[in-house]
């Protein structure tokens, strides 16, 4: 892996920029502009801008990926005309939504109506900054980054409910209620599944969790936790089969019924951002993050940015699994969803936790790890 770090790159960029600007400026200004504090502040901003751009581009490409995959599942072709194989279609769609007039229903609550989607979007973006993508691409070592990520992840029901309530629409309200109930119900098994990973890796730091998987990925020994985690993630991301908060058959569009134009785009983007983050978490926690098994030829893992490349490949494959599920399963009903959540998922996740504890205790993790990824 290269030792290039994202923060280092942005620091260098800003430093280079400021010194070159400073060299042509008169005396008091150049000293001020090449001052270390300014460089530091600006490099943080550049870092954030790169993160933002990367998250947005990834999200939009993710939408493209889903559209293409879903298209083939449905015997269609998906987007194919704007850009190569329709890659730019979603940018065009975004542009169209951006140009649209944003309106709000007369009886809607202005503050909630506009702040809801914004906050939903913003919290989803923050998530992206927390997650490490490769050794270089992380926002510094936070000892509790996993916990932080999941904490921010669970903000969403609040903002969804705020926007649903302030829309002043019956469908939105029902969608918001369902959304809140569903997310809270699946928060618990999700966290318990994560606890299994934490027990095995012994850390809340995502970077550490990934480096722990250098030898064996966790999906083998922690398969039960993986299943619970994926199911929980599906519910958290509100994707079929758990998309009943926005079940279009009965609730029109659920909690975002009244939203159009850019506000709708916010919801849409944030949904896929959360989808991306969900896939990231699956890759980070269970599929070894940016690491590759040692039997993979060195040429495939040693090129520049190989970590990010493999990480994204895994992410997109995981998201492909979500799309596959979406293409083949119907939507469940609220009561069934909640029953499965409380009655099945929580016992399962508890079992996963105990299993992980047992595996750690008897120290047979590598044995299970060997099976799925041979040649550790």
């Amino acid at each position: 892996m290269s030792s290039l770090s994202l923060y280092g790159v942005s620091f260098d960029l800003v430093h280079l920029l400021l010194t070159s600007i400073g060299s042509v400026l008169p005396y008091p200004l150049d000293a001020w502009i090449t001052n270390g504090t300014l460089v530091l502040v600006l490099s943080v901003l550049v870092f954030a801008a790169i993160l933002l751009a990367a998250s947005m581009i990834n999200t939009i490409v993710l939408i493209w990926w889903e559209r293409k995959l879903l298209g083939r599942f449905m015997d269609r072709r998906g987007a194919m005309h704007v850009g190569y194989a329709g890659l730019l279609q979603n940018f065009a769609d975004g542009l169209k939504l951006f140009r649209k007039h944003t309106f709000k229903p007369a009886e809607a609550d202005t503050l909630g109506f506009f702040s809801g989607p914004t906050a939903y979007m913003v919290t989803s973006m923050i998530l992206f900054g927390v997650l490490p993508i490769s050794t270089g691409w992380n926002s510094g070592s936070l000892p509790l980054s996993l916990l932080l990520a999941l904490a921010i992840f669970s903000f969403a029901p609040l903002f969804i409910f705020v926007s649903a309530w302030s829309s002043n629409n019956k469908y939105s309200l029902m969608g918001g209620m369902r959304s809140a109930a569903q997310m809270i119900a699946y928060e618990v098994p999700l966290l318990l599944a994560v606890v299994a990973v934490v027990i095995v890796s012994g850390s809340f730091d995502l970077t550490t969790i990934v480096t722990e998987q250098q030898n064996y990925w966790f999906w083998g020994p922690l398969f039960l936790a993986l299943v619970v985690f994926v199911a929980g993630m599906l519910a958290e991301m509100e994707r079929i089969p758990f998309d009943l908060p926005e079940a279009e058959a009965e609730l029109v569009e659920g909690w975002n019924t009244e939203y159009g134009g850019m506000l709708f785009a916010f919801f849409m983007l944030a949904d896929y951002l959360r989808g991306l983050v969900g896939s990231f978490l699956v890759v980070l926690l269970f599929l070894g993050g940016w690491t590759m098994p040692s039997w993979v030829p060195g040429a495939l893992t040693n090129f520049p940015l190989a970590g990010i490349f493999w990480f994204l490949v895994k992410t997109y494959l995981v998201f492909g699994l979500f799309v596959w599920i979406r293409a083949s399963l119907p939507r469940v009903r609220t009561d069934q969803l909640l029953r499965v959540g409380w009655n099945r998922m929580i016992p399962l996740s508890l079992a996963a936790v105990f299993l992980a504890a047992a595996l750690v205790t008897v120290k047979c993790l590598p044995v299970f790890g060997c099976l799925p990824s041979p040649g550790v």
Partner: protein
Amino acid sequence: MWINMGPQHPMTHGLWNLRVKIDGELITDCDPEMGYLHRGIEKISEDRHYNEVITLMDRTCYVAGFAWEHLYVLAAEEALHIQPPERAEYLRTLCEEFQRIGSHLMWYAAFVQDIGLMSPFLYGMRDRDLVLDLFQSYTGARMTYEYMRVGGVRNDLPPGFTGHARKVLDWLSDRFVEYDRLCLGSDIFRKRCDGLGVLSAADCVATGVTGPMLRSAGVKRDVRRDRPYAAYPQLDFDVAVADGADVTARYLVRMEEMRQSVRLLRQVLDWLDHHPGPVLADRLPRWLGAPYAPVGKEEYVLKRNYPKGVGFSSIEEPHGEAQAYVVNEGSEHPYRVKFRSPVFANLSATRHYLVGYRVADIPPIMGSVDICVGEVDR
């Protein structure tokens, strides 16, 4: 809390308004409001020539145009004392059975879409398109066929049609297996559909519900078998019945009906291969299709003594039992045309099969009814 599900709502499949009263997610009352698509077809028919009414029939139900054409044409022939040739009757049976497959495929697509299954929606539409291709190859249109005529049909089949039709039937038979795997094989599907929208046989009969909904309650009633018309007396088929009376049972009945239609169609195609003949009765009065006298001079035509008559027909439309009543008062125009739409009756029983279930159950239940608002409102 009353919720308006419609007139523009993803559940409605057409323009109508289902007002539901809910308590939490539980439905306590409901009241369908119809009429958003009322075009006055019965009134317009009074001003049309007998063959011109056929253009309206295609638009009565946009997924089962042939069935409605057939219904009207049967009643009009009865009223006008015209006997179609035998080959025309087989051709009409061919149309109606293909239309049944097409309509049920459309229903399948919409129904699975309602419960959130996305890909089978397109499988259903794709396979229905093959049926529409066949229609287009001999009628010239994909949905508004205007193919049947009082006294026969417009034209004969193009050469090679039966071979292609058999290929389509083979393809469709394979797909039905796939459909079942996607739906019945999925536990979530079964959990969504089992025990929903139960309408017992007694309730069905009392509320006038017919078609697959009635047969799913175990009542073996099919106009094709009870009062055979066209070529059905000569054909061999089974009436699909189920005993669940719920959404799954309706799914099973419709799937089995498609299989039976395939079986019927194979017999019809075999017959058509070996029995060439005329497809339109000879010596038909030409005023069936076109007015002769300009408006304001009708009396010169009315003076002629056309034989009066009444026609009544009833057929097994894909949605249920449709009936037509045509009164011929000896003029070029039907005096009165009255249609009975099966969906009209099926929808009037909404309260019986919707109350007591949840809001999330409305799409599967209403989807299993197979609504075509065009024929409800006419």
